[in-house]
């Protein structure tokens, strides 16, 4: 069993509900939508986590591509440049899942990778450009 994260782009007017249904039903994959930005008349984006065997995963991805959905491996890592970081804490204000927090007492920056959904909000918010995404 493997767990992988995909960054999906949907063309405008693409139905999204059926997608997860098929991934479960036809490919036996367990989808977990980490983040979705879908508006009917616009291009949509979804950060999808899939759990399943390697073959099922490949088949699932092929299915998504055939449906006209852009598929790429989600950013695999958030990197913090300690030399640039001034520990202002501003990134913690935009990190909704609570992956970036300030330690109680010391107010030092703590990054809990497991909670990160790769939304990139911190990348944009950091005034020191100290956070980057590694692919």
């Amino acid at each position, binding site marked *: 069993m493997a767990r992988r994260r995909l960054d999906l782009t949907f063309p405008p007017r693409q139905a999204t509900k059926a997608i997860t249904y098929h991934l479960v039903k036809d490919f036996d994959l367990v989808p977990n939508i980490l983040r979705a930005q879908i508006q009917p008349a616009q291009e949509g984006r979804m950060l999808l986590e899939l759990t399943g065997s390697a073959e099922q995963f490949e088949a699932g991805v092929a299915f998504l591509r055939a449906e006209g959905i852009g598929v790429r491996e989600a950013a695999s890592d958030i990197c913090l440049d300690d030399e640039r970081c001034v520990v202002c*804490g*501003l*990134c*913690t*204000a935009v990190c909704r899942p609570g992956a970036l927090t*300030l330690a109680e007492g*010391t107010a030092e920056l703590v990054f809990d990778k497991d909670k990160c959904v790769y939304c990139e*909000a911190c990348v944009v*918010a950091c*005034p020191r450009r100290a956070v980057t995404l590694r692919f």
Partner: protein
Amino acid sequence: MAKSWEEINARIAAGEAVVMTAEEFGVLAADEGVSAAARTVDVVTTGTFGPMCSSGAFLNFGHSDPPIKMGAITLNDVPASGGLAAVDTYLGATEPSVTRGIEYGGAHVIEDLLRGRAVRLKATGPGTDCYPRTEIDTYVTLDDLNQAYLFNPRNCYQNYAVAVNSGDRALYTYLGTLLPRFANATYSSAGALSPLLNDPTYRTIGVGTRCFVAGAPGYVAWEGTQHNPNQERDENGVPVGPAGTLAFIADLKHASHEFFSAATFERYGVSAFVGIGIPIPVLDEDLAATLALTDADLSATVFDYGVQRRSRPALGRVTYAELRSGQIEIEGRPIPTGPISSLPVARRIAAELKRWIAEYRFTLTPPLQPLPQPGSQGVKPLEIRSEEAI
């Protein structure tokens, strides 16, 4: 119990002064009482490290051969003022680069100079009899400059606003990204370590106060722009919103990039994190009482930045202890918080200043001139007038 500036300076000079950071003093006062703490401690050090847009540096390049009267000047493509004498300039921290926009600005140039990097200087001039050259393109380092000094017209805000956003789209502000529908709150103050919150009525801080400016020994040069001692105050006499401000001067050649760090606020602009630390003499119990205030005693007013007017609606008041807990409650709804001002670096500055006093016998200077006091002045708005209305 009262101590004079002279007594305290004599103890510093003799290496006998008892110095504590404002946080340590708060703990001591809670344990032993304010009077005992006031008797024991001679100096309390403060520190703050937040974005301070109104910052910049005066630079003198020296004369080239043949010389030039610099008009349009850029440093690494960031425009600097050509409105001074031939080879003098003022580089403002928020000035964006003409090629890279807000990703690189005046603050970044200053940080690069502090890091010892060569910076590309380009200028044009009119060509005069005494300054015949009309163009120059060269590189300068901080060492090459005759004079380079920070002059920051407004730093060290005495308290600030807490920002939230009631609107339905994210706002990109100088207080960071404000998520829609009250999804976050940001704030910018060192709280209990903040210099002007420790001396709320400016008894010991005034023109001429020697202090820590971006890692260099510097001075309070003047009241800061928009200095507003008339801001609403709490029962301890401490402002509950943006109030006093200070202008600083310091030698850039002695400053450090550790305490002057360029910043880019998304879709807002360039700014600079500036480190300021001010030592405060424990003159008497009245002063000790405000020095002893902790984050739980200090509060700030929450403003709705979703209303984009000069006067934004106030939604209540919260303490710095609540803000630092990571969540506040406004009108019954919990809102996660995030700071903009670095507490770890503020602590480092207060500790560094303590070391200066112990190791370098950094003595204190009483104000040469007091700052405008509460009751004396507020901030005036800018009215938009037509020529006929003048």
